[in-house]
């Protein structure tokens, strides 16, 4: 186990792994059936939405119950732009900027509240969003919804539609993941973590909790908007139902099950969001809600860090069991073995709390 970790820390090995993963992602749609491609594409769509949710909830510690609202706004903006023959780049930018501005305005008011009240404000977003989308029927097509076909594969590529959509979604999602990774590893990410852990400490260090909360909220809403654009690429149709309250709750459940405060967890969360309803619907559609509730509560009970923390938990169990035997046989000097738990200890604790 240790050797694997050590190997992964080597820069060249990492690069090689990255290249292999990228190559697999590029080749995959060419060999898989249409349905699998569509499923993977939708996982990409929701992984970006969960990623945004993770930035605000996992990394900056504010419970956000309205992420689906920004996905819906992004989807509607995309549909409107396409319907009015905007350039697709302009459409994409609008699908980032408009939800971002909305998020900023909401955050400016909501972040004034401490603690859980922000959750109570954001729960309203999808619940107001649905009737609002029905009311603004000139822009949104009312409860009929609106469709936008702009993501068909161009002739010169020789690809099928599902393959083309897959490439767009996975490409944009990959960029989003890299950006998010850099954000949470960098200066802003550290400031957000301090704000999450203790606002008073953050304030005493000269970090304004208000400003970082607003920033995290805005970034989350931009990611929501991007996932809305991707949603239109994949589904090509949106209606008020897209941003219903239950979808928002499922998105939150997906984030927690995947792993809060974890980039990889967002990907697992996206897969969870798409795959679990498929499985439970295949068994019995009436149990979907129950099973989602049970899974969410069970994960929090057993694995507070989400599925992404599973390898770490297993490793810790193995180490605890293996230590006495390993000590006698292992030739490595003790400091390295002692160092491992200390470097890992705080991290698991931090992840567990989120």
């Amino acid at each position, binding site marked *: 186990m240790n050797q694997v970790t050590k190997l992964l820390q080597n820069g060249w090995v990492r690069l090689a792994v990255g290249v292999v993963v990228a190559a697999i992602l590029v080749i995959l749609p060419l060999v898989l059936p249409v349905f699998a491609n569509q499923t993977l594409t939708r996982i990409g769509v929701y992984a970006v939405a969960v990623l945004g949710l993770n930035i605000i*909830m996992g990394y900056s*510690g*504010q*419970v956000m*119950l309205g992420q689906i609202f920004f996905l819906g706004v992004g989807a509607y903006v995309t549909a409107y732009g396409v319907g009015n023959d905007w350039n697709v780049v302009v459409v994409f930018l609008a699908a980032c900027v408009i939800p971002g501005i909305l998020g900023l305005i909401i955050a400016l*008011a*909501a972040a*004034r*509240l*401490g*603690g*859980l*009240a922000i*959750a*109570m*404000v954001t*729960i*309203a977003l999808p*619940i*107001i969003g649905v*009737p*609002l989308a*029905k*009311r603004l029927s000139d822009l949104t097509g009312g409860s009929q919804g609106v469709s936008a076909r702009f993501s068909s594969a161009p002739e010169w590529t020789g690809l099928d539609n599902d393959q083309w959509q897959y490439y767009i979604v996975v490409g944009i999602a990959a960029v989003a993941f890299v950006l998010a990774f850099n954000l949470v590893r960098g200066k802003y990410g550290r400031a957000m973590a301090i704000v999450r852990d*203790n*606002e*008073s*400490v953050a304030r*005493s260090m000269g970090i304004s909790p208000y400003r970082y909360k607003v920033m995290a909220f805005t970034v989350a809403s931009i990611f929501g908007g991007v996932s809305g654009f991707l949603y239109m690429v994949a589904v090509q149709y949106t209606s008020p139902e897209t941003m219903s*309250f*239950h979808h928002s*709750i499922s998105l*939150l*459940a997906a984030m*927690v099950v995947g792993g809060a405060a974890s980039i990889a967890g967002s990907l697992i969360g996206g897969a969870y969001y798409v795959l679990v309803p498929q499985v439970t619907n295949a068994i019995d559609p*009436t*149990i*979907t*809600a*129950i*099973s*989602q*509730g*049970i899974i*969410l*509560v069970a994960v*929090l*009970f057993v694995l*507070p860090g989400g599925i992404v923390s599973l390898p770490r938990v297993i490793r810790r169990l193995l180490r605890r069991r293996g230590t006495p035997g390993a000590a006698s046989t292992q030739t490595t000097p003790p400091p390295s073995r002692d160092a491992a738990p200390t470097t890992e200890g705080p991290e698991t604790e931090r992840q567990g*709390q*989120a």
Partner: protein
Amino acid sequence: MDTFIQLVVDGLSLGSIYAALALAIVLVNQSTGLINFAQGAMAVLSAYIAYVLLGWGLPTILAILGSVVVSFVIGAVVERLLIRRFEGGDPDTAVVVTIGLLTLFTGICGWLWGYNNRQFPSLFPLTTVDIFGAVISIRSLGTTLVIIAIMVLLQVMFLGTKLGLALRAVSVNPQSASLSGLPVGRLLMVGWGLAAALGAVAGALVAPQLTLTPGMMDTALVYALAAVIIGGLNSPMGAVVAAWGIGVLENLAAVYVPFIGHDLKIAVPFLILFVVLLVRPQGLFGRKVVVRV
């Protein structure tokens, strides 16, 4: 003018329903420091329990009382078996657990009783009386009176009884409360049980108006949360007054502001919310919480 009075009175009766749920939320928050997002779903489950008891041939009032008792037990059990694991930890995690409960309870109701609307008899007669030219149903009046009675009881309990004092002590500082000899675990169970019982009352009051469905409380929960923020998380009276205010204002806005109309009136409490927050972040009746490092 007649329409105006009518709208105000209807708004008060609507607001009373939000108030019942808001009171339950305040109660859990006062005794555990948590926000229970499953409060609405638990109220729906209570209403279904009352529905089952009615099906056994019990009179309405007994069925509701029965569901209140069963709900108290459910609330206490949920706290003991599930929530306790997360108390004292990160409040965000605990809140996500309550969101899991929300999904779970809605799912259980849908699984056991289906998603079709069911008729639920009203506790009060469906006759109306005439006051200042407005037609007021006995049901609205009864609902409002029940809520006022509960609010007064809660306020008295929190401020005037040993149990209320103990509950408040536990919510402010569980460790100190425990050191002073208070049975913290049992008090938390009682807090959850009382809130669930209160939710059962809300469920029984709402069900006749909305007909019984698993999602019937989703909207009411949102209003209740708005009322709780506007009124202040630590004030039962503030929550009720805010809930009434929301009920009345949304009714007036639906009729007098053409853009809002009936489908968008749910946005009204949040417009009020934003205005209130900008002026008083701790809510109209709330006390500011001082944080010490």
